[in-house]
């Protein structure tokens, strides 16, 4: 059942029709996926199914989808079927990795040090560790590594001058204690878990309250929160302690489609995709498993059943996207104390309104009739007219104190002869709303273009007016306007049109006569009409009471607004699911199989860790908590290995497993399996704290060795996968940008809080992000605090391979391109930073930018450049130099 790749045992010659079936059909019609409830895996199955409707569809070219079979293959299948479907072989099933796969075995290591493993592996290839790196290079390496920033000249001097034997240990401890450590390593984790600050998909609106989770992550690293606890909080923090509720932002850190959909399949698909994102993020981040590959069928390479995917989905079935108030019980209680009484008063006032309304139920019909006799007919979005005695005018003005809700698709002015003369008149408006990038969208021209498809909108919700001006005195008898003359809009939009207005006419622009107002009309919105009917039906005394109560609700609501709201955060919103998760055949939301019980993965069924399952109806919180505990179990073979490998990956630029989120068959094999186990054991031995593990790695000879290139060694191991040298690394995008700010003395080291923007953000139904030519001082903070909208290119960051948070990014690529050169040379940020650097000595500039003093040749060339072109040109060049970007 869990095995998918099918082939014929080698003793049998590959009968062509069988090959055709294997190649063309089995990926969908296998015993596990059974698309269309068909499997072609065995001869009897294949013969039975093909003799039925399937062969017809194959002949019509409808199967397989996307053009059917080539004619010759079609004929071959037909002939084969006609000859009784000879199929001599037996089918055997094969999976590439089974439960004996290396990463699923218990962790075991007998070693005593990191270097022991490294040296053994090197010796086996005739290689050895390089000599220790010089101290100047070492402090630059380790400072960038732990903080994402370069060391200051003072820090370098202090380290070089420190005679203590443990000066390097002290340096590591200082850096690990620096808040910049969490900013750097928190960012790594945000990559892994696809944290983004917009919804993604089409609308892609910003999530303004996503950042508390980002601050939580940074804080967790800085506090050295044990990783097993960190993991548990992210999956089920709400079940642990209100203080770590915000950690569940992990679950919903991915994209979420906010476009509503009326179609059932599409709605189900949106939910299934939300769950898919959560399943994928959880399994890949913590377990290093590509469980998402089992969405449509059993995993083709790893022992992950299709049901396993849906088991995790069932665990997460109560998780929903959204913002909510996140606060400690004390803060909640404090606010309740203030807001509670007001809320209760509002409630009782509303009840009073309801009681008064109920009391006159019988009188509504007559009251409405009375109103209709006194008021004029309501305005309509489909068309409103004001008719009056002919009057001479050069100007007509319609003004609206509360703007023109819904806009206007046309305004017309008629002569007594019934001729609309607005088309030839001059129209002036108070303002026009500009849709970004498209000044034409709501243009005033739409008001008198004789067409009802597009509308004019004024800016904002305040007073607005339209003036129609004629060249000469003209007799007017009727003015008409509409928001939706062709009745294109439905539902709530139908009620949108201007109802509060004043129509005035002037013969000379001096004397204005009010012709009509909206006040004499019945309200056109049903709720407002209902209210008026109620008031009409009430006794005089109750009427006063009613109006006074309404006013008191308004006052109370205003008072409520003044009580500070609880802080919001984008975090998991939890609801007991209304329906179970079903296994979806072929991943198709309209092809539901059985309901799936929330449970641990069968993948680890044979490992020492105990499996668990809960009932279909189990409280959703319990599901997540159990799952988190299963993840965080010391005996789980995957989680400690996966996080230990990530730590190694970021220190050396490459993991012991080079695919940090894939410990399966398609991932790479560990270069040092025993070392990986050693690190995992050390992590657990240290109570899952990460800082001691950093320390141990940074103190190893492997980390402290030189990065000098050795041609002989490179011939054997070009990429230094065995670590015969420390692998040099290019700065990642954030470190590059942060370093420019830092060496220029402009970096604002404020920790946490709302994000700043490196793009211009606008919303007109969908969000649009415009690149910026100039960054203000509000952006001079560390890049981890830059709002990370999904799928958006950000100046400087994106071109240097900063991921756009659409997908988890466990391993950034490091590319070289001319566009990087263009950005770094020409964006104003570089010149701004170069200018901010100010006139310093050449020596200081080299020390700050490269961590070393210049040699005489460099001083000579630098002075020549500065003399002729100024200090800014010099610093701009330093920022573009390789030495600024590379760490050795």
């Amino acid at each position, binding site marked *: 059942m869990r095995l998918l790749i099918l082939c014929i045992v080698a003793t049998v010659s590959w009968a062509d029709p069988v090959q055709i079936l294997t190649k063309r059909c089995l990926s969908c019609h296998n015993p596990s996926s059974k698309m269309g409830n068909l499997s072609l895996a065995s001869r009897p199955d294949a013969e039975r199914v093909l003799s039925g409707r399937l062969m017809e569809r194959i002949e019509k070219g409808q199967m397989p989808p996307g053009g059917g079979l080539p004619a010759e293959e079609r004929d071959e299948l037909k002939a084969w079927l006609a000859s009784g479907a000879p199929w001599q072989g037996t089918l055997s099933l094969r999976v590439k990795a089974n439960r004996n796969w290396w990463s699923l075995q218990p962790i075991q290591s007998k070693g005593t040090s990191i270097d022991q493993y490294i040296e053994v592996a090197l010796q086996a290839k005739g290689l050895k560790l390089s000599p220790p790196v010089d101290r100047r290079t070492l402090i630059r390496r380790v400072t960038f590594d732990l903080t994402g920033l370069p060391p200051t000249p003072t820090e370098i001097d202090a380290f070089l001058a420190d005679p203590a034997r443990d000066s390097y240990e002290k340096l590591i401890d200082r850096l690990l204690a620096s808040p910049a450590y969490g900013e750097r390593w928190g960012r790594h984790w945000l990559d892994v878990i696809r944290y983004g600050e917009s919804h993604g998909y*089409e609308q892609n609106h910003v999530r303004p309250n996503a950042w508390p989770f980002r601050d939580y992550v940074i804080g967790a690293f800085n506090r050295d929160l044990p990783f097993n606890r960190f993991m548990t909080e992210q999956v089920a923090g709400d079940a642990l302690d209100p203080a770590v509720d915000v950690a569940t932002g992990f679950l919903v850190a991915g994209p979420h489609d906010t476009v509503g959909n009326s*179609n059932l399949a599409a709605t189900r698909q949106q939910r299934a995709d939300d769950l898919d994102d959560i399943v994928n993020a959880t399994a890949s981040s913590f377990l290093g498993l590509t469980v998402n590959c089992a969405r449509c069928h059993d995993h083709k390479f790893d022992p992950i059943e299709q049901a396993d995917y849906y088991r995790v989905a069932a665990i997460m079935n109560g998780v929903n996207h959204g913002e909510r108030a996140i606060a400690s019980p004390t803060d909640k209680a404090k606010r309740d104390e203030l807001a509670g009484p007001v809320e209760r008063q509002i409630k009782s006032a509303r009840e009073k309104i309801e009681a008064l309304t109920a009391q006159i139920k019988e009188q509504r019909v007559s009251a409405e009739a009375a109103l209709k006799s006194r008021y004029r007919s309501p305005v309509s979005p489909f068309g409103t007219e004001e008719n009056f005695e002919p009057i001479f005018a050069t100007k007509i003005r319609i003004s609206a104190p509360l703007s023109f809700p819904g806009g206007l698709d046309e305004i017309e002015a008629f002569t007594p002869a019934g001729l609309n003369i607005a088309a030839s008149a001059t129209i002036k408006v108070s303002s026009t709303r500009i849709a970004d990038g498209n000044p034409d969208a709501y243009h005033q021209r739409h008001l008198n273009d004789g067409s009802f498809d597009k509308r004019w909108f004024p800016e904002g919700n305040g007073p607005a007016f339209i003036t129609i001006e004629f060249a000469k005195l003209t007799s007017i008898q009727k003015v008409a306007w509409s928001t939706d003359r062709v009745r294109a*809009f*439905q539902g709530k939009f139908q009620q949108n049109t201007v109802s509060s207005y004043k129509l005035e006419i002037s013969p000379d622009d001096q004397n204005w006569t009010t012709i009509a107002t909206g006040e004499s009309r019945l309200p056109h919105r049903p709720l407002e009409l209902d209210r008026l009917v109620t008031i009409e039906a009430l006794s005089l005394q109750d009427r006063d009471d009613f109006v006074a109560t309404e006013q008191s609700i308004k006052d109370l609501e205003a008072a409520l607004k003044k009580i500070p709201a609880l802080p919001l955060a984008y975090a998991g919103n939890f609801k007991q699911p209304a329906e179970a998760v079903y296994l979806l055949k072929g991943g198709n939301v309209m092809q539901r199989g059985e309901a799936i019980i929330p449970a641990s993965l069968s993948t680890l069924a044979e490992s020492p860790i105990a499996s668990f399952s809960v009932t279909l109806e189990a409280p959703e919180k319990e599901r997540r908590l159990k799952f988190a505990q299963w993840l965080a179990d010391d005996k789980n073979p995957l989680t400690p290995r996966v996080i230990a490998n990530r730590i190694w990956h970021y220190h050396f*630029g490459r993991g012991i497993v080079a695919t940090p989120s894939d410990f399966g068959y398609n991932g790479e094999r560990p270069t040092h399996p025993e070392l990986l186990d050693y690190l995992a054991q050390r992590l657990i031995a240290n109570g899952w704290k990460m800082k001691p593990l950093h320390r141990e790695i940074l103190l190893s000879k492997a980390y402290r060795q030189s990065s000098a*290139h050795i041609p002989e060694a490179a011939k054997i191991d070009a990429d230094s996968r065995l670590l015969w040298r420390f692998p040099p690394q290019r700065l990642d995008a954030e470190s590059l940008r942060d370093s420019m700010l830092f060496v220029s003395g402009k970096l604002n080291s404020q920790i946490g809080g709302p994000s700043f923007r490196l793009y211009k953000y606008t919303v007109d139904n969908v969000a649009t992000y415009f690149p910026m030519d100039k960054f203000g001082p509000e952006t001079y903070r560390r890049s981890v605090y830059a709002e990370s909208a999904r799928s958006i290119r950000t100046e400087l960051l994106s071109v240097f391979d900063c991921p756009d948070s659409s997908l988890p990014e466990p391993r950034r690529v490091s590319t070289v391109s001319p566009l990087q050169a263009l*950005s770094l*040379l020409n*964006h104003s940020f570089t010149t701004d930073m170069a200018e901010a650097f100010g006139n310093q000595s050449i020596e200081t500039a080299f020390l700050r930018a490269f961590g070393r003093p210049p040699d005489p040749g460099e001083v000579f060339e630098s002075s020549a450049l500065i003399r002729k072109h100024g200090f800014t040109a*010099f610093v701009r060049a330093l920022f573009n130099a390789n030495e600024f970007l590379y760490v050795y």
Partner: protein
Amino acid sequence: MSTNRRCFLTGLGAIAYGDLLTGATRQPHFTPKAKRVIQIFCPGGASHLDTFDYKPELEKRSGQPMPGGDKDVTFQGANGNLMRSPWDFKPAGQSGKPITTKLPHLAKYVDDMAFIHSMSSRSNTHGPACVAMNTGFVFEGFPSAGAWLSFALGSENENLPAYVALPDIRGIPPSGPANWTSGFLPAEHQGVAFNAADPIRNLDRPSGISANTDQATRDFAQFLNTEHAARHPGDSDLQARIASYSLAARMQLSAPEVANLNAESKATLDLYGANSTNPLVAAYAKNCILARRLVERGVRYVQLYCASRASGVDGLLNWDAHKTLKSDYERHLPILDQPTAGLIADLDARGLLKDTLVLWTTEFGRMPTHQEGTLGRDHNPDAYTVWMLGAGVKKAASWGITDDFGRRVVENPTTVYDFWATVLHLLGLDHEKLTWYHNGLNRRLTDVHGHVIKSLLA
């Protein structure tokens, strides 16, 4: 190929620096018919029923309920009766293929087009559907077709990006840059977005810095880099980065040249409609000319947009005619028509069609019915039309058929994977072999699907 190119994930690998840069040309799997691609994209869901998929039965039964369609609840809700196109269809070309009379210029080229009438989409929402058309996945973060081709074949002109996206003057399409992203492929394969009105970003030296100072600054950086590289022999990344600055300098010269249309003759401008009094026609026409100039200079892949994202008013900025189909398409069809026809004619006249592939695409089709209470059509992900034309493409061909009303596909259903498998095939690439490892899989443009549509090959 994929394993080789995984190397530089490690940082300073030992591969030749030329391979790190866009400039390198790489070999296809087999002899290609096409060397480069212009992909036109009409965002918003361009209606097949008002362009290229003629349905006589729809005209006949307009105003009547659609048989079997009474329970159709689509993207925005319920649907009304069948609604014929506001315009007649007329046989065009020698093949007599009926297309809308509202595209008179394109009608002249139907004999060159190979239509696929049986496309369907996995999403009925613009953003995911656009991204699905361009990357094969409804989720964002996967490489677009142009990025795959940049990765597979490199550029024929190292002074220009291998992959250029030309967004419409009205704005970027739904889901924006996710349509030309390199996804998890290296950033160098990203589509570089600019157009005739908006140049490549950061191309010009900073204002206030003279050409002399700029050059001296670069020379000094070069001096530092040369010294630095000498101290670090064997690290090819450093050489690559030095070379990237020369490439950038050449791009600074080439890119303004390619975007400068002043050298185009009046006849050419008129052919495309670049002098049209309709500013939107003129703007799209200029982008069409720019597309030609780019492929002429060896750019591998040009993605050319005709319309943009959604706005507060459906159908205003793009092909999303929910409420007022007639007036929306009276605006959009003429924008598409002459400039696109001009592009085809010009490519042909210059001999470029021999090895250039032109694709016309959109994210999904529209309903044969009108949306309840409106005179527009809702989204129809179950059927839409695309076409291809040029190098290696069969002339006057049609593939796939929709039902009598164009509601659903009834013959030769085709996926975006089949479409891209066919495009890759024309470029000499086996879609199953063009892969990149990411998060557990050797990823492909065609996911685990895709069949080359042989009937459309010349």
